């Protein structure tokens, strides 16, 4: 296919693939509770993930190895083990949440309880991981995820007062029912949702799966610099729509179906159907990514053959980890646990573990042994270091805030 089309496809995939259940829930919840008062957090988060995803892609293209693979040899097995255990656990929670998201999206069309659909969903996710090529997975679910643009359409259709919205976003004010602690807690949750660690593992391993070399760096940069911010705008649309429709009615978001309710109110049946399709695609794609990430992290730490670019018979333990993770994720959901609570824990704990994920990327991206001449420039390092400081502050504040606000209640 022509080069231009390929690039266009890549950017679209990045936009559509940016949002997952964490973003859906976090943006809708904060929109309903704080209006646009936390919009700035999404912007800060998007810049952060753009900076680090570009680095992770560059590492993979220069060294031929994904970032996580290099953590053990660069930072030692102990640090890497802590990284592995924390990342695997959080990734597992995220996987379960995404599986729930798919099941819930389908339940909205079937009218049955989502729990009944979990086993079928888990099986479907695994079958796609097993049989579909990496590139096809990325493109199909990424493009389908663009259905979430319906939130932008809904927002425009509402004809909101754009000036007052802009004012609300640029002059964050604390609503009377909230405290500075809940504000900070939700800021952290939103941040964790935007800078999800698995994105980076997956992105980096994906670059190797697709055989990126230095020649692909420009495409990588385009996808990241254009795709991710547009994905961030999608997140903000979800937040804005919730603030315009749910907040005035005193509705706080505690379930996934509430997230798409504004679209039904504004755009009717068609809008609702498109929104549900978007949720399905976003969560299905993310379930695949987190499933594969479970395999990538374990296999790369232990040096096993990994990847979809080889026959499953040649990477058996990798595929076993992926299969077992999906099965355990489904069983976890069948225990009846609240999927929104699982989502919230996954994004908040992601925020707490961010320094663990991002610090190795920065170290490796500066190492000429892996990067050759493509090490970070001074400006990039300055930005990345600033972010690392922010991430550390966020990580330290997470657990105390979780206790003080009793989980954001």
């Amino acid at each position, binding site marked *: 296919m022509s080069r231009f089309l390929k690039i266009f496809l890549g950017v679209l995939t990045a936009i559509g693939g940016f949002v997952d259940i964490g973003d859906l829930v976090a943006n809708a919840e904060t929109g309903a509770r704080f209006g646009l008062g936390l919009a700035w957090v999404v912007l800060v988060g998007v810049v952060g993930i753009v900076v680090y995803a570009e680095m992770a892609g560059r590492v993979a293209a220069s060294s031929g190895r994904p970032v996580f693979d290099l953590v053990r040899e660069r930072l030692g097995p102990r640090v890497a083990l802590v990284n592995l255990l924390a990342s695997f656990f959080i990734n597992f929670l995220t996987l379960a949440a995404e599986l729930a998201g798919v099941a819930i999206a389908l339940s909205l069309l079937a009218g049955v309880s989502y729990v009944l659909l979990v086993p079928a969903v888990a099986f479907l996710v695994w079958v796609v991981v097993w049989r579909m090529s990496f590139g096809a997975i990325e493109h199909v679910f990424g493009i389908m995820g663009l259905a979430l643009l319906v939130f932008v359409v809904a927002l425009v259709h509402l004809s909101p007062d754009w000036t007052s919205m802009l004012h609300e976003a640029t002059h964050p004010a604390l609503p009377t029912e909230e405290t500075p602690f809940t504000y900070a807690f939700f800021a952290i949750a939103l941040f964790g949702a935007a800078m999800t660690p698995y994105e980076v593992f997956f992105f980096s391993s994906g670059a190797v799966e697709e055989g990126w070399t230095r020649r692909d760096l420009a495409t990588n940069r385009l996808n990241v610099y254009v795709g991710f911010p547009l994905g961030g705008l999608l997140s903000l649309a979800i937040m804005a729509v919730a603030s315009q429709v749910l907040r005035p*009615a005193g509705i706080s978001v505690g379930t996934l179906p*509430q997230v798409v*309710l504004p679209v039904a109110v504004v755009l009717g049946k068609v809008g609702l159907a498109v929104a549900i399709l978007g949720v399905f695609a976003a969560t299905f794609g993310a379930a695949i990514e987190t499933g594969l990430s479970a395999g990538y992290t374990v296999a790369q730490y232990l040096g096993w053959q990994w990847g979809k670019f080889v026959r499953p018979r040649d990477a058996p333990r990798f595929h076993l980890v992926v299969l077992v993770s999906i099965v355990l994720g489904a069983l976890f959901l069948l225990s009846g646990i609240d999927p929104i609570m699982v989502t919230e824990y996954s994004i908040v704990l992601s925020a707490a573990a961010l320094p663990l994920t991002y610090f190795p990327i920065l170290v490796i991206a500066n190492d000429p042994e892996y990067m050759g001449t493509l090490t970070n420039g001074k400006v990039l390092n300055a930005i990345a270091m600033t972010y690392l400081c922010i991430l550390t502050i966020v990580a330290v504040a997470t657990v105390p805030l979780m206790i003080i606000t009793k989980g954001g209640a």
Partner: protein
Amino acid sequence: MRRTVVLVALAVAFVVGCAHPVGPARTFGAYEGKARTTVSSARSNVETVRLAVDALARGNSFGPYTAVVVSDAEDALGGLQGTFGSIQPPDRRADALRREVDDLLGDALDGVSAARIAVRRSERPDTAALVESASALAQWLAAHP
């Protein structure tokens, strides 16, 4: 190694335990606070059902979606009623508050359950009860800032 594992497990248990809001209320103020949170959540659920049922009536959504939304709200209200009811009222003044809130929750649950039954039968739900309940909840919240 083993000591680290035990410490981490204890830390996780502590954090998970603290991150959950249901605990006893020892003063009237604390009890009223919990009442406020409960009524606020109840209002959110009733308004959600109102919005969803309204959208269905206007032809802006479809049956299965509305059924799930209403069922979720019904489950949530039941949970709220149960959780609030299980909190020990600290004094006699709190008893009156308890009855008040329980009545509000009961009415909300009745309205939402009726809506759920109607939606699942593909019948038109009666929104009067929902509107009344929503406004009663809002009034209570205004009276207890």
